[in-house]
Structure formats: C-alpha cells, structure tokens
C-alpha cells in the first residue's frame, strides 16, 4: 500500500488502466468484442495525441485524421510501390507525419484560436484530397490493401494478438503522455494554454513548445494510423477525412480535455456507440451532431473530469 500511495495520482490512473486492460479479456472472451476493444485502443492513441495538443497546449486541430492517414497509407504505399518492408514503413510513417507537422507547424502555430483550427482543417482536407485523387499511388477512393506485419515467420493477425498489441502500444503512449504532463515541459504547455504572454515572460519559448507538442501529436496519430492499416489489412481515404478529424476532436472533448483516461473513455463511446446502434446507421450524423452539441453545452469539462470533480479528486 505504501508503494501505491507514493505514486502520483496520474500514475495510479495509468496502473488502473493497465489492470483494466489485462482483466478485460477475462470478461469478454468473444473475438468480435476483442476486435472492437483493439479498435478502441488504436483510435485512443490518436485521440491521446490530439488531447495533448488540445487539452494541454490549448490548440484545436480539425485535421488530425490527416496525420492518421499518413501513417496508415505509408503501410500500404511503402511495401506496395516502394518495396519497403512493413517494419520500415512502420517507422517511416510516423517520421513522415512528424516531419510534415514540423514543416507546416512553424508558420501556422503563430495563429490563434479559430484561425489555427481552420488552418489545420485546410491541411487535413488537402491530405485527404491527395489520398483520394492520386489513384496511381493510393488506389483512389477505393483504397489499398495493406500487407500484414510479420517477423521470424509469425504474422500479426487475429483478435487476441491485436488486443494485446494495441493495448500495449496505447499503454506506452499513455505512459509517455503522463510523464510529459508532470515534467517541466508539461508545466510549460499548460501555462501556454492559460496565458501565452504570462508563459513568455517567464522564459518559456512558446513557439518551440507548441511546435513540439504539434509534432508529438502527429507522431501519435501516425502510429495509430499504421496500426489501423495493419489491423484492417486495408485502408481508404475516409480514414484521413474531415469527418474522422471531427470524430477525434469529439472523442477528446467528450472524454475530457486534459485527461488521459478521458481520451480512452471518449474514444470508447464514439467507437462502441455506432456498433451498438448499427440499426441507426441512417441517423449516424444526427446522433453525432447532437452528442457534440449537448456535451459541449452541458458537460463542458468532459466525462472523466466531471466525474473526478464530483469525487473531489484531480487527475493531475
């Protein structure tokens, strides 16, 4: 008990998450549900990256799915057109996304509020358009097949292996994010969110930190995209589309900006709900839009922070 209480609250949550992940397969033995869980973990990694950007640095991105798409399509284009091994592509995708974020980030991060949001919107739409139109490279609207990941004769496929892989990767991502938050960089980011100017006069190089977190979020997104591509064995431009970007933003906001656990919860809701309401496919947009509006009006802080406040605790 002593060791547990010495851990800071946010690390305790991480431990809780790990335990939950380990225990879940014992409860849901079904391959179908395990696949859904894996999908939640994969998307949650992207949401987590976005949360670092939105929840900590306070920058709204409406083009996050573009980076997911880059990570995903590298897993297809690399092996198919460039003769790469899937492992090379796995590294190249996030590297590419990070490089793009670094390049584009420097000018657009000077923008504030709505302007930055719309700039990211434009960026995401451009990426999505290229993926849609460059049929020779990307297979156009129908997408491309993605070769599976294999090593030493073993191929990564199947519900259970994917469950553990995605859970593991998410846990590492969450651990990295948790570390970041409690570090001087984390404090600098949170300070920037509340007051650019206040942070600046204390010696915080605001532009550099915004760029760093933008690149980090892009890398998280690309890793998630790569896993998504490998998981499905197939990828379409929709995965990089505007609606997907909006969904990520909603997942982050719904679960609670600034909350790591919230990223997972928000993602879970938005992934599981359409599955549960498969009957209501017609009304998908109606429900999504309604969900977004209602939550932002009535439960502004998001699910996890609202619950935490009720319990009198803070995740940080």
């Amino acid at each position, binding site marked *: 008990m002593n060791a547990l209480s010495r851990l800071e609250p946010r690390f305790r949550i991480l431990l809780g998450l790990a335990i939950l992940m380990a225990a879940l397969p014992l409860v849901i033995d079904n391959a179908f549900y395990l696949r859904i869980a894996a999908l939640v973990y994969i998307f949650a990694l992207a949401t987590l990256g976005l949360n670092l950007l939105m929840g900590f640095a306070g920058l709204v991105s409406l083009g996050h799915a573009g980076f997911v798409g880059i990570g995903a399509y590298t897993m297809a284009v690399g092996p198919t057109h460039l003769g790469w091994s899937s492992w090379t592509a796995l590294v190249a995708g996030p590297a590419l996304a990070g490089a793009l974020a670094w390049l584009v980030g420097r000018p657009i991060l000077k923008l504030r509020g709505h302007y930055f949001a719309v700039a990211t919107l434009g960026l995401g739409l451009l990426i999505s358009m290229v993926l849609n139109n460059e049929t020779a490279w990307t297979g156009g609207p129908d997408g491309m097949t993605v070769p599976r990941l294999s090593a030493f004769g073993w191929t990564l496929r199947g519900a259970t292996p994917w469950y553990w892989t995605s859970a593991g990767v998410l846990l590492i991502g969450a651990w990295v994010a948790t570390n970041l938050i409690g570090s*001087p960089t984390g404090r600098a980011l949170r300070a920037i969110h*509340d007051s650019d100017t206040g942070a*600046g*006069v204390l010696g915080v190089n605001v532009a550099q930190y915004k760029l760093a977190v933008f690149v980090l979020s892009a890398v998280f997104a690309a890793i998630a995209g790569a896993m998504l591509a490998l998981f499905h064995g197939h990828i379409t431009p929709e995965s990089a589309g505007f609606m997907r970007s909006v969904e990520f933003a909603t997942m982050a906001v719904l679960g609670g900006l600034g909350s790591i656990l919230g990223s997972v919860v928000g993602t879970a809701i938005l992934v599981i709900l359409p599955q549960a309401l498969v009957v209501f496919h017609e009304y998908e947009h109606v429900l999504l839009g309604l969900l977004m509006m209602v939550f932002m009006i009535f439960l502004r802080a998001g699910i996890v922070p609202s619950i935490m406040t009720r319990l009198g605790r803070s995740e940080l």
Partner: protein
Amino acid sequence: MTLLNIKEIGIDFGGIRALDQVTLSVEKGEVFSIIGPNGAGKTTLFNVISGVYRPHRGSILLDGTEITGVTPWRLARAGLSRSFQNLQIFGRMSVLDNVMVGRHRHENRNMLAHLFTLPSVLAQNRISRELAQHYLSYVGLDIDARRSAAGLSYGELKRMEIARALATEPRILLLDEPAAGCNPTETDALCAVIRKIADDGITVVLIEHDMKLVVQISDRIHVLNQGRTLAQGKGAEVMSRPEVMTAYLGEHGTREMLRA
C-alpha cells in the same frame, strides 16, 4: 552602474502616439518608480521593455546590450522578468505550479528526458517545488499551494505573480501596479517585500498609483503623462511640482491643492 537604458522610445497605436521620446535610465540595485495618470502609457512602456510590444522608435539597453524588440522569453533568460497589471495567471493550474513555471529558465529542458521520466526529471521537479514554496513564503503567501490559482483573491494573485517572477531569479524585476487591490495592511507588507527584493540585489522598476507606497519605497520617480516624460526626481518633491499635480488633478484641482 546603469542596468537599464531607455532611449527615446516611441510607439503608435492607430493614429495615437502612445509613447513618444521617453528616455530614462535605471541604476543597478535601485527601486525606480514610474507614475502618471491613467492612460499615460506606463503599462505600454512595460510592454515595450519586456518585449511584448515592439517599439516604432528608440532603443532599450540592458546592461549595455541592445534588447529592443527581443522576444519576452529571451529577455527572461537574460534576467528581466515582470508581473502584470491585468494578471496573466495560469488559472487552471495550482498556485504551486504557477510559481514552478517561473523556474523554467533554470530547469533541465531536455524534452526527451521528460517523455520518459528519468530520475533526473523527478529530482528536477523536487527542486523546483521546494524553490517555488520558498518564493511563495518570501512574498508572504502562506497558503496551501496545491490550491487552484483561480480560487485566490486579486491581492493574493498579484503577490503570486511576484513570487512567480522572482522564481526566474531576475536581475531586474518590473512590477505593474503590485499594490492594486491591496488594503493598507497588505500594502505595508508589500512595501516590506519590495524592500527585501531590492536589498537582495534585484533592481526593481515599479508602476504604481499608491503615492504613499511610491514615496516610501522609491529611490527615484519618473512621471509620464500622455506618453511623454513629464518629470523625474526624488521623493515627495517630484509629486509637489505644479506640472505633475496638474497632470493628475487638472488646473482647477491643482489650484485647490496649493491653496489647501
């Protein structure tokens, strides 16, 4: 020895000359006050000095080095820090975290280490935390620092900002109306704190409206009016000059004052 040298600073907003030909110098270790009626350009001057605004004319030298238009974060790392009239606190962070951000300049900023919480990061956090507590006590803010900053009173927040600026270990500290929102007891406590800061070798430049505090604490006083220098001098003598009184009270008010 002159630490801060401001030469003929001018800045325009739209068609208005917010500052024009402002020249002054601050000696190392002194407490230098800038006063003037509302709209005189005092905070604008601070914003220009601390790099928030870029002046259109003139130059600023810190310890002989040109710092005109240098970004705020670079100035902070060169030893210049400030507090704000309208508060720029980090409302969603705790009081302790707010002051800890002030340590940023001295912390190990290796982001890679931060991503993996190496032992060095834990040690760094502990040091920053202890120092932050130290600065909070220094300004007399003995409250539970884990509270959210948003819950503090205006006067407490002003002191928190001072603690935060002190945490950067500045050579020169700009305080923008630190006594605003303070009752007489708090103002006296603040006076003692500023005295302590100056005694510890930090140069202080102050914007204030509380004349009693200004006269008590300042080594020299510089008066601004409508963006221009009106007068400069020592102590109460400056305040009783007719042109200074006119700026504050108007001609009629000044006549009344002189008659009283």
